[in-house]
């Protein structure tokens, strides 16, 4: 956290990479470039949603699709997942051993899986009440935005699975630590996108 340490140059954490430090820096910066392009994608889907808010064409609107209990649980699960990932990163940084790191990672993954299950139940409910994407412009935009985020979380879960296997096989080497750091950036980024979704899509929809 102090500026005096030249090794702590990326926005992840100083994980004490040896000679590969510069390489890890470049990869993390490259990953930020990806995240920011992903942010543009999400931002534009948000903008499309904004233009479609009124376009319900007589079909189900924000009040019909918003289940505040479910949104609150999903928010808690995703925030919990993000926080558990922080703890995994810290256990990696402070050399608590691979099992500790895997424990926090599995917590983060379980929480995110719970998020996806609750989201899936919401999707099923939307289909039951006829709130399908082809019903109206509003619903197309809603499914595109919430679905895009859900797909990102699902992809993140696959990535956690891959990293778990790599940690089990190779241990916490510098390469693996660098990969887990990038996964952490992705994980926290998805929680930021969810803040936008629960505020602007669900809460603002019923305000």
């Amino acid at each position: 956290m102090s500026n005096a340490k030249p090794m702590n140059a990326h926005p992840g954490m100083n994980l004490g990479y040896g000679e590969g430090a510069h390489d890890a820096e470049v990869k993390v910066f490259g990953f930020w470039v990806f995240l920011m392009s992903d942010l543009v994608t999400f931002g534009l889907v948000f903008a499309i949603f904004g233009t479609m808010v009124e376009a319900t064409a007589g079909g189900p609107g924000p009040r019909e699709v918003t289940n505040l209990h479910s949104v609150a649980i999903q928010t808690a699960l995703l925030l919990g997942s993000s926080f558990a990932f922080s703890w995994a990163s810290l256990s990696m940084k402070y050399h608590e051993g691979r099992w500790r790191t895997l424990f926090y990672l599995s917590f983060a993954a379980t929480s995110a899986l719970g998020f996806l299950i609750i989201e899936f139940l919401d999707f099923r409910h939307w289909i039951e009440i006829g709130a399908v994407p082809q019903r109206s412009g509003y619903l197309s935009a809603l499914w595109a935005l919430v679905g895009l985020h859900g797909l990102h979380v699902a992809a993140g879960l696959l990535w956690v699975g891959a990293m778990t296997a790599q940690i089990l096989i190779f241990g916490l080497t510098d390469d693996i630590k660098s990969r887990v750091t990038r996964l952490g950036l992705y994980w926290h980024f998805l929680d930021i996108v969810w803040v936008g979704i629960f505020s602007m899509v669900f809460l603002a929809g019923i305000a």
Partner: protein
Amino acid sequence: MKPNIKTMVRSVTGEESEERSFYSLGLVLSILLTVASFATVISGLVPRDWMIPGLIVLAIVQIVVHLRIFLHIDLSRQKREDLLMLLFTVLLLGIMAFGTLWIMSNLAVRM
């Protein structure tokens, strides 16, 4: 070589506990801001006209908290490239997203 057991015992340094409490602060702030967002809509204490602006402000504050605490973005020189990239992306999004909303709402009014 026999490993020196003494040096392998982990001690919680000042930096570590500081970092852990910083993350915990992030969690507490996020929970408070999320509860405030939900309360804005369901408590009935906030006038209708203020709900959406309130939600926007709370969301932006929470995003800044996440960026600062969980994603380690700050104003230090080392992280300036990341911060500049983030700000440039926000500028691009401001032009594209705000422009889209502006033009499309204008079109909707005229139709």
